[in-house]
């Protein structure tokens, strides 16, 4: 069964343009990652390659933050955000749904809990998320690699762009398979054109057995 849904950006996915993007998007992303070191010094992270993050993820979605709450559960403060999903990339389907993103930390009354490296988003933000099911809290999702798994969709003159803001992000994320050629990439943010990202996702999906 293939379920499709009209997309406002659907024209970019069709025909020869799609084929071109499918081929070029991985190259563009690799080029982007190689080109970015040296841009500036700011919060620096070792990127988990997107291919790894994709393979680690149960679901990759683009959506909008439509709700947020903070709870005290099991001795922890949690921030729960409802994401109204517009597109699911892993399966390539368009099913309207709302997923709940669970993020450790938050503030409650006079008490706060801070946890290293967590993702941040505001109500109304459009985001792309790499997600895994939260096995400890049925029905909710966690990002695959904390803040590294959340991109904001930003409208730019050249088109919608995914921006991964790691300013102030904390945490330890490592790509173990990069041991042989450790890649240390200092960037303020990772930016990928949305159409390139989506074409790349299409390509990844088609490569899957």
């Amino acid at each position: 069964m293939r379920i499709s849904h009209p997309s406002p950006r659907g024209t970019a996915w069709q025909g020869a343009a799609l084929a071109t993007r499918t081929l070029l998007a991985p190259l563009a992303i690799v080029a982007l990652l190689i080109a970015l070191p040296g841009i500036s010094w700011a919060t620096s992270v070792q990127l988990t390659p997107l291919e790894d993050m994709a393979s680690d993820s149960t679901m990759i979605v683009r959506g909008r933050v439509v709700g947020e709450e903070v709870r005290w559960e099991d001795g922890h403060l949690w921030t729960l955000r409802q994401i109204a999903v517009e597109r699911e990339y892993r399966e390539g389907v368009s099913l309207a749904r709302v997923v709940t993103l669970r993020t450790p930390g938050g503030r409650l009354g006079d008490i706060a809990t801070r946890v290293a490296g967590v993702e941040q988003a505001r109500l109304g933000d459009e985001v792309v998320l790499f997600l895994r099911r939260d096995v400890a809290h049925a029905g909710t999702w966690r990002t695959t690699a904390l803040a590294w798994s959340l991109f904001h969709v930003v409208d730019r003159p050249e088109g919608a762009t995914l921006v991964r803001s790691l300013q102030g992000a904390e945490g330890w994320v490592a790509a173990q398979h990069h041991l042989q050629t450790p890649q240390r990439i200092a960037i303020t943010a990772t930016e990928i054109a949305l159409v390139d990202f989506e074409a790349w996702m299409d390509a990844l999906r088609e490569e899957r057995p």
Partner: protein
Amino acid sequence: MMNLGRSYRDCAAIAAALLLVGLTASPREAGAYARTMTCDLADPSSPLACKPGETPLPIAWPGRCVGYHIAEAGSATLSTEQTRDAIHAAFQTWEEVACSYLSFVPLGLTNEWRTGYDLCRGARNANVVMFEDAGWSHGPRVLAVTFVTYDLRNGEILDADISVNTDTVRFGFLNESDGRIGGRIERFDLQNVLTHEIGHLLGLDHTEPSNMVDGFGWEASLTTMYSETAPGETTKRHLHADDAAGICAIYPMARADAAAACAAQPGYFEAPGRAPGDRCPRQRGCAASASPAPGSGELLWPVLLIIVWSTPRWRRLQRPRWALRSSAGVLLAFVLPSHAQGAQACPTPRLLAHERVVDALVVEDRAFTLGDDGLVVAWRRGEVAWIPLEVRHFPDVEGLDMSAEGDLLLLSERTPYVWGLSTPLTDPRTDHVDLSVWRHPDWLPLLAAFRNEQGLTVVSPRGAWYLPAVARDGAWRPAAPRGRHVGVTARGAILSLAEDGEQALDVWTDPAREPPTASRLPLAPGATLRMDGPSALVIERGQLYQWQDEEGAWLSVRPEGWLVDAIATESSLLWLEAQPALGCPHMAVTLRERSTQGERVLAQLACVRDARLARCPEHDDAVALLTDLDSGERRACWAPARADWWAPEEDIPLSAPAPLHHRGQEYAWIPPAMPYSVEVSDDLQAPHDGALCNPVVRVVHEGPVLVTQDGVVAPGLWSERVLLDAGPGSPLIHARGWRAR
């Protein structure tokens, strides 16, 4: 590559020398370290964003002595002795900074297996270093996380726990002789990681390279508090000058109490309420196991109202009129176990009326419970506990339900009761519940009851009767012609097949009229009726009709394609349309939804053999889309109010719409999907009064909310129905609640 750690150390030494040169050459302070602040001023998207007028403060431990415990379970993947050595060494690294007064006290082992801060324990929270060999939920490539809980008013750290991912990450210990980590180059050095995490525990954030001395920004990567690591790295075992500057800024030796001795005594920390190795399945807010911190000023106020009446005596005395006069407190015991003062008040009401609660309903501030002793108890929500209002004994009742208009229905296979509540359920002015009980021999099985100011309507497959409010002498009269009743809507409208030879469906909506009148819908051949939702649907090939209780009329929908199936939820109407598709031997199907928001396409299926809609068993107002039933069934559930699709875990029973065109057929009543138990916190059972135990403290959604199976609060229109199951040991077991409309 195997000497990665060594190369880092070499780099660190060179960099430190360069930093010193830089410091000497520049008048600026090399302050790349960052202190964790109580709130984020710059980033309003942060969960910890400062509120208007709030000033961020740096966080720090209030005293000079910081104790820590080590989870005795350790990790099966690591040597216990080496693990503990690595932990102590990592703490020691920070303690050895000469310009800081901070001291660490290794307090021993603990059976605590969770990170987090227990509000009710206060000072008895332990700072724990623990290892998660299974169930790591923070991401497979995240090595460790540190939870730092602090007081927003002054920045004092209350508790900090470090959890290490030994589930998906391989750790080891540096072998000084060959520079390898446990003989393997792909492992992460545990001490390296812990030294970094302890920096967070102390109030340090990640190093900000942009704050390094001009030209030395790259050197930030050599600090312990740098956010990046790699397998084999051991650089962070040793503090960089910038890390030392950071810790000394927080805990400067110049402080008055810097020389005070640490009085904390090592000792095993046993997590309250748990035996070693005992994994508590869940704890909600301030659970009954919580005990106040010694000397914290909290009070334990157990209040026990003694059981006055025993069940046998109650059974002997129970009579309708007597029951009406019974008052609060009879037959029931209450415990208010931990009503404490101040911000850590943890009211946890317990309901001890029944040995076992069979069923329960919560309606606004009223609750009704049915015990396996046959007692039905009405409750009012009090300040800290539920207060009993009324108790009745109904030996045959097997469950509770509520009519759309707020009457309590006592469900029974043997005795048809309707228990009416004449007092508005939401009226806070009275504790009195006026009860009326009606019964009728022909009500078996009782399909539905509906009561308003004019009277009471009851329906069974065998007939429908109406009792006007002014005639409570038992003068029942037919609410619809005796005969083929095929359904009852949520508002009590009775559907029955025409008996006058015409192929039509009558809806009897106004039982007060005599004789009763009906709205008639002619039926086309092949028409079917769906009554497994809140409204009645008649499905024909080219037309869909939905009965509108409010308007007392049929809503007609004419699909563009061939109407395959339809179903209604409380908030929307969904249907499947089929059309031929190019290149597809079967059909293309579109799922459409019509609601107050308008009409929209929910999904398009390019080529499927068949498609059906059903009630999704995982949610009582969700719809399941099933396709290719005979060749690899595909299923997806859709909840309109949540706008959420998910893959159902349970089998979905298909209830075929009842055909309406075959005369003489027995029409089976398809009962509404029964609500199933869900788990949410106990906060819905007690008022909060600002207590921190309330697990749902901030809901940003506008409008009503839905508490779903996993306790998630989602925006939606289903606030009328809140499902509760507080879990083992909690006050109410398996309670369903409705909010009044």
